[in-house]
């Protein structure tokens, strides 16, 4: 009996990465050996179905789990893939033969046929070719459906996708000539491999499905752990912050939608090839919901979780519920209860889906295998590994110097911002010289943050122009403005709360990296090098704050103190390689010592040549840092000058201090 604990200790001694490899190996062996161990065609078929649903769940997970876009009509893309393969391998659509078809016939894509009448074309698209092509076609539809709707608020998107999901089966039902309507496509060809047809035996489908699931898991993980995946998660966590960190919202949302659609299109080909028929009912709202239930059950955003969710639900339907029904009937017979003898749990599977959704949302929102695990807080010992570095940055030389031209970096000319009838900014002029520090002060509600929002493209300005390094940036989208080198922090801190410090800082580099979806999946040496360099740089930037942040790089931001969140926001902004840094009350919520420390750090950044525009209330910080102070009140610039001059300006005193001080001055 002492063997088990001993084994557990041995197991625990193996490094985590090794343990994962071991687990993966065992899983692979088990999955591959299954048909030999358990030679039952119906069960192997159930497993292949489960795999098909796992593929769908993996696709929906990219949309819902990674990017946070609730898609309730996901089965539409499944249908598109399915009908694509079905139409091009069945006898449904048969145009008249002409010589124009000959090249395709030579490629084996079509055959010449005649059934007593005229010569017709019979499509004979290969299964293996159909897989990637259908994925692309479905992705195309994803872009088509997504383009008008992905700008909508999240909840509207849900209902619009619900509608799309409903329309595709309606079209399938009513365009008889292509789809054979409600009766469904018949005679869809089974896949062939070197001339051998898969037929109706479950075994080959099983292995194909396992291969496809493995492929999609691989793609999912590669995407998740890349620049693309990080951008998706940033969108999920906070769209506004993501866009100001350089994430092109529309493009990345479309990419998520298209990738999810591609997975579904691929699955559609497989599923129809396996069933050799396609009817509109196979792709209705219940299917979309079932896939959603799988994702929710497994854990939104969790790759292995959704595979598990799909497997559990599919096997529940095909194995457990029929067994349970049989047992209940037997029990009913035993106790003589008529209802127990009649009840059929398989019919109530959708009821169970509904219950799963509700129960998971109420009690376990992160699913069976949560995508993110809460990182434990640092131990007291870990917090005290080294003395806190006060003032200045540590290792500043690693992040390089800024080279500035002469002249003005930023010129705000006569900018007016109105919200309805309220004038938030009224013809404001402001100039930040390259390499300088300008501070904006003014009472709360005087328009300071609105000014930052106008500069970074978050609110439209009705009048005026904003030039950065000589070019107009007013009217550009936030990500484009970031790309020019304008980075910011927010007064109310907008980090990505469920991501780690390191991930937050990596997202800051989004616009400076180039890896696309293909590169992320292939992960060629160039991508690896880029990613390694990005991570190195992120660590360098985090290390600037000494042991305030460095030991916490792997912690989720939501567990950090206020002051540390402010530091992460500065780090994230620095990671964007800004040409100008806009800091909105960077020291709010900090005590005097922390304030002083951050002020010194900002000063040292400026010492390296970084141009800074700063909103600040604490005058000692302003005096210490700024060359020029601009005072806003009621959306208007009331004065501008050197810190000392501004402090003596009577109008400023009136705006800021009100009557009490004026009385004190005049008395």
């Amino acid at each position, binding site marked *: 009996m002492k063997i088990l604990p001993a084994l557990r200790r041995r197991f625990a001694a193996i490094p985590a990465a090794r343990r994962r490899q071991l687990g993966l190996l065992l899983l692979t062996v088990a999955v591959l050996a299954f048909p030999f161990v358990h030679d039952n065609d119906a069960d192997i078929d159930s497993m292949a179905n489960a795999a098909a649903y796992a593929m769908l769940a993996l696709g929906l997970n990219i949309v819902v789990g990674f990017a946070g876009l609730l898609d309730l009509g996901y089965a539409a893309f499944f249908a598109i893939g399915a009908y694509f393969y079905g139409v091009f391998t069945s006898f449904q659509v048969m145009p008249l033969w002409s010589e124009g078809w000959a090249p395709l016939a030579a490629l084996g894509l079509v055959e010449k046929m005649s059934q007593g009448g005229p010569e017709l074309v019979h499509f004979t698209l290969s299964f293996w070719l159909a897989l990637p092509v259908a994925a692309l076609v479905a992705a195309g539809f994803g872009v088509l459906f997504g383009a008008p709707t992905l700008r909508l608020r999240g909840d509207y998107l849900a209902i619009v996708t619900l509608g799309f999901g409903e329309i595709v089966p309606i079209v399938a039902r009513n365009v008889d000539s292509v789809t054979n309507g409600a009766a469904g496509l018949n005679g869809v060809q089974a896949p062939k491999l070197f001339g051998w047809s898969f037929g109706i035996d479950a075994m080959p489908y099983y292995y194909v499905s396992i291969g496809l699931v493995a492929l999609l898991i691989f793609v999912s993980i590669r995407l998740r752990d890349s620049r693309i995946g990080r951008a998706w998660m940033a969108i999920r966590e906070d769209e506004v912050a993501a866009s100001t960190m350089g994430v092109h919202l529309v493009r990345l949302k479309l990419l998520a939608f298209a990738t999810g659609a591609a997975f579904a299109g691929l699955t559609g080909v497989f599923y129809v090839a396996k069933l050799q028929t396609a009817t509109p009912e196979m792709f209705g709202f219940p299917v979309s919901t079932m896939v959603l239930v799988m994702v929710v059950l497994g854990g939104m955003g969790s790759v292995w979780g959704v595979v598990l969710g799909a497997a559990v639900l599919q096997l529940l339907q095909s194995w457990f519920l029929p067994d349970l029904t049989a047992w209940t009937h037997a029990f009913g017979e035993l106790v003589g209860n008529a209802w127990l003898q009649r009840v059929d749990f398989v019919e109530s599977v959708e009821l169970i889906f509904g219950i799963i959704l509700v129960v998971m949302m109420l009690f376990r929102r992160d699913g069976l295998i949560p995508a993110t695990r809460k990182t434990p807080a640092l131990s007291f010992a870990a917090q005290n590994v080294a003395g806190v570095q006060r003032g200045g940055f540590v290792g500043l030389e690693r992040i390089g110097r800024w080279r500035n031209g002469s002249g003005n970096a930023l010129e705000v000319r006569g900018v007016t911002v109105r919200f309805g009838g309220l004038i938030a900014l009224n013809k404001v002029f402001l100039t930040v010289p390259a390499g300088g520090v300008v501070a904006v002060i003014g*009472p709360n509600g005087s328009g300071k943050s609105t000014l930052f929002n106008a500069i970074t493209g978050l609110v439209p300005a009705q009048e005026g122009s904003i030039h950065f390094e000589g070019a107009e940036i007013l009217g550009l989208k936030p990500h484009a403005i970031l790309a020019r080198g304008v980075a910011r922090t927010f007064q109310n801190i907008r980090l990505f709360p469920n991501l780690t410090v390191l991930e937050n800082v990596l997202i800051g580099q989004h616009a400076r990296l180039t890896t696309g979806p293909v590169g992320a999946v292939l992960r060629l040496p160039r991508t690896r090098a880029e990613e390694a360099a990005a991570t190195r740089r992120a660590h360098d930037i985090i290390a600037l704050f000494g042991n305030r942040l460095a030991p916490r790089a792997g912690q989720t931001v939501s567990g*950090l103190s206020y002051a540390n969140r402010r530091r992460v926001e500065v780090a994230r902004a620095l990671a964007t390689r800004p040409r100008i840094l806009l800091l909105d009350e960077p020291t709010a919520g900090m005590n005097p010592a922390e304030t002083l420390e951050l002020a010194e750090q900002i000063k040292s950044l400026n010492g390296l040549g970084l141009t800074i525009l700063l909103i600040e209330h604490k005058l000692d910080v302003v005096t210490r840092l700024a060359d020029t102070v601009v005072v806003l009140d009621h959306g208007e610039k009331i004065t501008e000058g050197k810190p000392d001059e501004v402090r003596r300006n009577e109008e400023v005193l009136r*705006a*800021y*201090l009100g009557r009490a001080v004026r009385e*004190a001055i005049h008395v």
Partner: protein
Amino acid sequence: MSEPTDPILEFQAVNTYYGDLHVLKNVCYTIGRGEIVSLLGGNASGKSTTMKTIMGVVRPASGRVLFDGAEIQDMPTSERVRRGIAPVLEARRLFPRMTVYENLEMGAYTRPKGAGFAQDLERVYTLFPRVQERRGQIAGTLSGGEQQMVAIGRALMARPRLICMDEPSMGLSPLYVEQVFDIIRHINAQGTTIFMVEQNASMALSIAHRAYVLQTGQVVLSGTAKDLRENPAIREAYLGELQVPGAA
């Protein structure tokens, strides 16, 4: 410092969290009946959280909040309003698509309409003739100063014994700020206790009897307004975070 002997509101070692963030740290306040007390501090120092803790919008994790000697920290907001605490919220927060009159009605929400409603309405109209002129107008279309008057009037409609004000000067032009502060004094003279969060420290200290200074969620200083006004450290750090030129 002389603690008031007849407190209307007390915080006893209150700790408040937002998620993992520790926002109020062992905070103690004592607000005497009939006082004007200011709460000073920078943005994100815990001022607004104090207001929300009094009103019951956030609940403290530990500590006690006493109103009139009774523990209220676990009471719903509506019960606190019924007992006599009314808020003037940051940035006014009127109901923008309701008329001025309906906003005032909302102020009296916890009281049966018969019970002195007309009398209170009259009092608000006397205090703010402008509000009476605009009573049929949609609140969202008023100017900032007019909105602040309605916001204060709305609080008065609850016939409160304590009014909690969150930055009453925010976004107002100097003329309105003076008017608003005159009104606050006037309301206080009629017997209502005022607890006021203000960023405009000089202004706040000019009408307050006492004040607390909050920094990163902790009370770092407290005393009579006069003492604080003359405290050089306060002048440096908190008097509107601007120094008075030539030390006045």
